């Protein structure tokens, strides 16, 4: 009842605040569109698995700009490809070189093909027409299709974080939190009410972004849109709980903005927008504490690889865990204002 009342109030406030609504709903679409126009991929050194190919060829590959791993059987190599341990698998099929690309990242695809073409050119004794097949994606997938899913996750996260942080802060600075705490509402009811009230808008935003990305921007998408919404919503919940929690440590709107370079930007770096392989391993592990990493991983899996619950379930649970943790910490942080 009280949770419902609080949720309703938040919605009523929202509807009156047109600009904030625009920020929540229009800004992500705008930025996504810009990114689509602007971005182009960058080169990486690909991991190629080789199986059942002449020794000469694999030696030559090793000297090229690629990390080569030899397998005794094709099946073994393909298994690692499916696990995303490899970017491509090279075999000989009736004397013709045949390459299977993992396919999720167009820039990696390009890099693999470039390396192979350079080497095969020097081989007179092999048929040089390369047979290319894709495990996921296709030849006409653009760079944007690959990091689009990450961006979708990022913008849901970013805008919800900002809004939740600022509105919870306003509750405090306007004195209404103090007034609220003079009523018999429980601390956890406040947090739950905020979750419910904002959750509705987060869901709307997630739906809008997903539909726009797939239908209007025509992003590559082979998975279920329901799963996509679910992950987007979970990410938004994490942003919501984190935003309200951190607003307890800010005393002005400007201080909320100051959290962006500390909390939001690093997550963008670790979320898969950029290739992390060049980074030292211990630094790479930082991504495990970043909610966006899990969200982006799941989004990519769903949109490009058509993954099901069995594949991204862990990501979903981790996000849920983050939300629960932040919400709990928030209930505790409210003790500062009322002990009960």
């Amino acid at each position, binding site marked *: 009842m009280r949770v419902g009342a*609080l949720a*309703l109030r938040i919605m009523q*406030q929202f509807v*009156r605040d047109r600009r904030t609504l625009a920020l929540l709903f229009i800004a992500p679409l705008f930025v996504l569109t810009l990114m689509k126009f602007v971005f182009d991929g960058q080169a990486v050194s690909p991991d190629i698995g080789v199986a059942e190919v002449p020794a000469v060829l694999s030696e030559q590959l090793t000297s090229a700009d690629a990390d080569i791993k030899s397998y005794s059987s094709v099946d073994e190599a393909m298994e690692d490809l499916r696990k995303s341990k490899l970017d491509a698998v090279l075999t000989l099929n009736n004397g013709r070189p045949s390459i299977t690309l993992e396919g999720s990242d167009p820039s990696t695809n390009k890099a693999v093909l470039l390396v192979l073409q350079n080497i095969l050119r020097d081989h007179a004794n092999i048929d040089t027409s390369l047979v290319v097949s894709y495990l996921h994606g296709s030849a006409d997938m653009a760079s944007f299709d690959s990091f689009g899913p990450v961006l979708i996750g990022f913008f849901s996260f970013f805008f919800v974080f900002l809004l939740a942080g600022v509105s919870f802060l306003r509750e405090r600075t*306007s004195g209404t939190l103090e*007034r609220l705490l003079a*009523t018999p509402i429980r601390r956890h009811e406040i947090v739950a009410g905020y979750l419910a009230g904002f959750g509705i808008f987060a869901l709307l935003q997630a739906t809008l972004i997903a539909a726009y990305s797939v239908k209007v921007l025509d992003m590559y998408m082979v998975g279920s849109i329901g799963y996509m919404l679910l992950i987007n919503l979970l990410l938004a919940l994490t942003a919501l709980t984190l935003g309200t929690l951190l607003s307890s440590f800010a005393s002005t709107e400007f201080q909320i903005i100051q959290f962006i370079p500390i909390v939001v930007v690093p997550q963008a770096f670790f979320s898969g927008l950029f290739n992390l392989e060049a980074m030292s391993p211990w630094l790479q592990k930082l991504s495990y504490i970043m909610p966006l990493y899990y969200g982006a991983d799941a989004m990519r899996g769903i949109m490009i690889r058509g993954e099901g619950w069995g594949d991204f379930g862990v990501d979903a649970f981790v996000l849920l865990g983050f939300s629960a943790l932040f919400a709990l910490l928030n209930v505790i942080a409210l003790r500062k204002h009322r002990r009960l």
Partner: protein
Amino acid sequence: MSVPLVNSLPPAIALDDVTRSFNHRTIIDHVSLTVQQGELFGLLGPSGSGKTTLIKLMAGIDRADSGRAYMLGTPLPKLEMLHQFGYMAQSDALYMELSGRQNMSFFGKLYGLKRAVLKQRIEEAASLVNLTDHLNKQVAAYSGGMKRRLSLAIALMHRPTLLVLDEPTVGIDPVLRRSIWQELRSLTAKGTTIIVTTHVMDEAEKCDRLGLIREGRFIAVDTPASLLAQTGCSTIEEAFIALGSRLEGGAVQ
């Protein structure tokens, strides 16, 4: 002699040697106070003297470092007792984006008021503070006085047993102020206990008893009449100043 009725009801508020400090600064310093049910108690003191902290301790929003606080005989802090507590804060804690009605409805629901009752209480409280015609307006468009009145209406709507009003009549015109005071009086007649902080001295005179607070201590707690008699002053304002300087200059009496 007008001795207050000795009844079997527990006091609305009982503070027993309560102390509260923040960052090693003592804000409330060993205060004891009993306010009977149905009493209209005025709290007077300069800003920073600890009024707001004292109110929070009375309501159980804050917990005393030492000493005990009771509301209606129940040891505080206790969440359920906030149902009995109505509070009008010094700053208008209202949601500017919402209409007056939406604000009232929100707070009403927090006290568990259900549809029909809620609707009726909103109308009742709004007409009491003359806001009926403005209920559907956005609060951002309200004048300062209207916001005060809305805050008051919100504090009243769940019919609390203990009502604390922090500067309730600031920015309210004299005619309405008079009618609000009449209403407060009729509430106490029905048994509601009201604690008012005020700077308006003619309002202070309307209280049953006054507590003059300074630096976290009561320098006097008595009826307005006996405060005047004690100090030999003709107005509460003078009495307040006299009592204050007595404190500074040491005991004169």
